[in-house]
């Protein structure tokens, strides 16, 4: 921007720690630093902070506190959920069902499990990225032990019908007379969608604190009481033997503070970013030709804008926008030796050459109408400039 201000529109990548959250964390750095498992008085204050944080998270999930496991982030939550459930049920079957647009933390964990003899079925999605609950039911076999479908996609923002999928899974499990665990990666949903685990009907749910103005290196894995689970971090007896390791107290307290804050301001924040999102989508469609909105027009995260621009490479758009003071992201990343196009855009049926031109703008609470107006004032020029350089028109 002319005045050197940077407009951050990559909130799906990470968010800044909110000062209120840092304030909640601060006592646990150097004052209440004691190991909450220790016996002496000062450690009881840490233990109290731990218990309260667990209750705080449980209140947002409408779960029991004992069902909340603190982890090191969304990646660990996803890894532990899938491995923990699969390994616990190995005797019951070796089949895992996930959507084809899951985050790599789920996708690659399935590859890891394949080394242990598991088989993964990738559910295809429609052109909006939606998973059909009937498809889930049909894909369940007498070997299925685990279904994992994300609550909202990180690239295109599509919100999946999790409670319908959970119902379909339960119905099939009943018919087959077996237990099938239902997990959802809610990393992108937190702060925008209802996280009530009973309404969602899930057995497990993953969160990553830095996606909702909480600390990096901290997250949550919800595990419904009675869910078979083999712990993946072995060691001490922390987290009721489901996650060993000296508790990251600042991270845990920060997670609870951030999640409670996000829930408290959810309605207002949704309204705020959704208005910006709609302004952005309409503006781009009005001023730039040969674009397509990726994801569902309405069943999408209120803060997600994702467009593919024909005849431009996403990275170029990003670098150019960066030069103009806008932080955004791209589905495809030409950063590694072989440029893999986004598996999400391919899954929704986009041709490789178009998938390369994706731009993701994910809004946050500090973004304003003026920010959106600024982006809309520069983006058409950027796309035009890049297209003008392209060999084919």
């Amino acid at each position, binding site marked *: 921007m002319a005045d050197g201000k940077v407009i951050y529109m990559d909130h799906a990548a990470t968010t800044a720690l909110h000062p209120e959250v840092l304030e909640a964390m601060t006592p646990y750095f150097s004052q209440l630093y004691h190991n909450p498992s220790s016996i002496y008085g000062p450690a009881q204050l840490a233990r109290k902070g731990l218990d309260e944080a667990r209750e705080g998270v449980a209140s947002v999930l409408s779960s029991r506190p004992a069902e909340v496991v603190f982890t090191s982030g969304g990646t660990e939550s996803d890894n532990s959920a899938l491995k923990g459930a699969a390994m616990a049920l190995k005797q019951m079957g070796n089949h895992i069902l996930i959507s084809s647009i899951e985050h790599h933390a789920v996708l690659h964990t399935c590859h890891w499990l394949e080394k242990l003899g598991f088989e993964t079925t990738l559910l295809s999605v429609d052109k909006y990225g939606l998973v059909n609950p009937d498809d889930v039911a049909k894909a369940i076999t007498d070997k299925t032990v685990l279904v994992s479908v994300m609550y909202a996609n990180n690239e295109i923002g599509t919100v999946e019908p999790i409670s319908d999928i959970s119902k379909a899974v339960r119905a099939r499990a009943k018919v087959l007379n077996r237990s099938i665990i239902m997990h959802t990666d809610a990393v992108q949903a937190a702060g925008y969608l209802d996280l009530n685990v009973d309404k969602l009907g899930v057995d497990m749910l993953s969160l990553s604190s830095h996606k909702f103005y909480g600390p990096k290196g901290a997250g949550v894995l919800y595990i419904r009481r009675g869910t078979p689970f083999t712990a993946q971090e072995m060691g001490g007896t922390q987290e009721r033997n489901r996650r060993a390791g000296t508790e990251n107290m600042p991270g845990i307290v920060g997670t609870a503070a951030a999640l409670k804050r996000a829930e408290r301001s959810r309605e207002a924040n949704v309204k705020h970013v959704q208005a910006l999102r709609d302004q952005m989508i309409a503006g781009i469609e009005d001023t730039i030709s040969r674009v397509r909105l990726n994801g569902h027009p309405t069943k999408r995260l209120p803060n997600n804008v994702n467009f593919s621009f024909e005849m431009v490479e996403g990275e170029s758009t990003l*670098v*150019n926008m960066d030069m103009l003071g806008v932080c955004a992201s791209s589905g495809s990343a*030409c*950063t590694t030796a*072989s*440029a893999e196009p986004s598996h999400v855009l391919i899954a929704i049926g986009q041709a490789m050459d178009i998938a390369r031109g994706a731009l993701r703008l994910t809004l946050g609470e500090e973004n304003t109408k003026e920010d959106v107006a600024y982006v809309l004032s520069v983006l058409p020029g950027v796309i035009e400039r890049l297209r003008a350089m392209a*060999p084919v028109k």
Partner: protein
Amino acid sequence: MPQYTEKVIDHFMHPRNVGEIENPDGVSTITNPACGDTMMLQVKITGNVISEAKWRTLGCSVAIATSSIASEMMTGMKLEEAEKLSNKAIADALGGLPRVKMHCSVLAADALKDALKDFYTKHPDKKPYTVAK
């Protein structure tokens, strides 16, 4: 992820020699198999020197920046020299590239070789003896 030099940014934001040449002596349109970037290069050859170079590129910022600086470097070059213009030399001229982006610099070097090949095909007599057949 990549950390770009000021030169990269300069050539990306202010690319030189974008466009076409009216009656080019050598032309090439190639695609980088690694990432799908496409470059069209046209050169005018006067005597044994590249007197003009124009290009169009669809690709990442580094592909565009290398196209731009390569077009400047080749202009005024003897064919013999131009044949030997390496992607390393182009990357160096930009002040270096992040390791993961080095493959992008191949595009311009390959396009140049390809355009010269096109020229020699049309004018076999102009081929300098130092160039392998």
